[in-house]
């Protein structure tokens, strides 16, 4: 079997090619509803990529197309160099999927379902690997339990464990921590980092923006089927985030003093806070001058604190603006 590369040539996979290359993918259902519109995206090997978007934005449709569960109307997807439509077997061998819905073989034991998953992907039995995965996900003690008897969080772990049994190069985690407790979320974050260290590429969709902020190298924001932006996490937060300083006064003000107008401050609702928005990356933030001016006009300051906008705020602003 040969790989189908960007150039369209049929040669072996290149070492520097993207782990996942999505080119002009659109998906329109027979009803006329367009779930995805011209999505193009490259994801590098070993990268943790977070795809954020509101409900119905197209995240799961995009993952389904890559994994062979849905067909694109237009465009193509290469997984590790293999076209998912032309060479589905080669492509799928490299992909692991943890879907959003909790779907498990209810009446089987954890170990039986793990063996099934590995066999299904054509891999030879490897009890040591299965034990390691189960231990990593604190499922080892439950290996002989029927899935029916497990809690929702444990079932979610089983789904993650199943997706890892065939040692995928690209792992899709579609809302992997939806409805699970903080402990599992932290466990999963640790596991994802360990996987990345072994070279696995991880594509994550999540509603917990804290999760993307914690783990992702790059973030893509999708809304109404369109990929609005793709940016490195740090760059995104620097580029679109804002910094804010709040100066808490001892006495309330009725209005901003004329001497401070050049800083374009705003006054807090109770009149006791002066709020100053600034560019944290700029050479001159204006903070020093402002504090000196406040001291000069004799405003009594009780406290001050600064904060940078979170990824969540950036996300909400972007989606609302669209």
């Amino acid at each position, binding site marked *: 079997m040969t790989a189908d590369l960007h150039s369209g040539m049929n040669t072996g996979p290149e070492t520097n090619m993207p782990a996942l290359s999505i080119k002009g993918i659109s998906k329109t259902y027979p009803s006329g509803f367009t779930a995805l519109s011209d999505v193009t995206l490259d994801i590098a090997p070993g990268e943790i990529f977070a795809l954020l978007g509101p409900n119905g934005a197209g995240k799961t449709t995009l993952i389904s197309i890559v994994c062979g569960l849905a067909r694109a109307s237009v465009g193509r997807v290469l997984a590790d160099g293999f076209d998912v439509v032309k060479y589905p077997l080669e492509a*799928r061998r490299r992909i692991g999927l943890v879907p959003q819905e909790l779907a498990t073989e209810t009446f089987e034991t954890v170990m039986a379902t793990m063996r099934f998953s590995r066999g299904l992907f*054509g891999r030879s039995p490897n009890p040591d690997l299965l034990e390691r995965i189960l231990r990593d996900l604190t499922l080892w003690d439950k290996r002989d339990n029927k899935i029916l008897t497990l809690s929702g969080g444990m079932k979610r772990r089983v789904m993650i464990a199943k997706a890892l049994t065939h040692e995928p190069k690209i792992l899709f985690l579609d809302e992997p921590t939806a409805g699970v407790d903080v402990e599992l979320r932290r466990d999963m974050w640790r596991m994802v980092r360990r996987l990345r260290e072994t070279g696995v590429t991880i594509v994550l969709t999540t509603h917990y923006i804290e999760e993307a902020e914690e783990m992702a190298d790059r973030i893509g924001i999708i809304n109404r089927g369109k990929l609005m932006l793709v940016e490195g996490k740090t760059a995104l937060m620097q580029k679109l985030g804002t910094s804010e300083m709040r100066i808490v006064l001892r006495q309330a003000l009725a209005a901003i003093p004329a001497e401070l107008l050049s800083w374009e401050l705003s006054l807090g609702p109770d009149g006791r806070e002066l709020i100053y928005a600034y560019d944290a990356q700029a050479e001159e933030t204006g903070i020093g001058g402002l504090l000196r001016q406040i001291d000069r006009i004799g405003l009594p300051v009780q406290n001050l604190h600064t904060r940078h906008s979170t990824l969540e705020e950036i996300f909400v602003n972007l989606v609302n603006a669209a």
Partner: protein
Amino acid sequence: MNMRAVKAIYFFEMHRAWRTRLQSIVSPVISTSLYFIVFGAAVGSRMKGIHGISYAAFIVPGLVMLSLLTQSITNAAFGIYFPKFVGTIYEVMSAPVTVMEILMGYVGAASSKAIILGVIILLTAKLFVDYHIMHPAWMVAFLLLTAVTFSMLGFIIGIWADSFEKLNMVPLLIVTPLTFLGGSFYSIDMLPPFWRHVTLLDPVAYLVSGFRWAFYGMSDIDVTVSLGMTLVFMLLCLGTIQWMFHTGYRLRR
């Protein structure tokens, strides 16, 4: 060929049957035994033989075929419908497996279960009826061909069905009547000419006739026609399954 995937699906399905052995094996054996007692021993003892064969022995191939068909269809239909229903089908559909491998796993397991059951029923029948098998190799061939063909039909029903009601509808409303009308309990020659011709449209009639020929060397329909019609039906099922996977009918979005 991803034989590991075939084995994984096959043994997973066989394990499911073992887990539900009371329902999968004991229940059909009991109900078929009742047929032998009622129609074979009680009613059959008061009826004259057909083509020189006692009525009890005459209905053995038909009853085995009835169980074989029902079990093949039910096992295969449930085997593919249940993962669709609970959502675990995503794993099979995103795995590196071809249609043929999926089919070998699911249809292979459903056929195996039906054949095991058919053999158990055949052995159970020996307790009530004295029968013999004239062409054992052909009997096995018909058993295999029927199990595989109707497991494929069950597989199609399992993909098509989007509710448990639909899943049960085809076996109950179509397959069971076809089996009864296909000559399980009588010779087609006993019917009036019009119904004899209608019966020839029933694919089950060819199976029962061919199967009965393997037992007693007599049949309502020529055995080569029976064999040919079964093969045609098998190819039709295979074509339909290929189309379903090619288009993603009720499998992919």
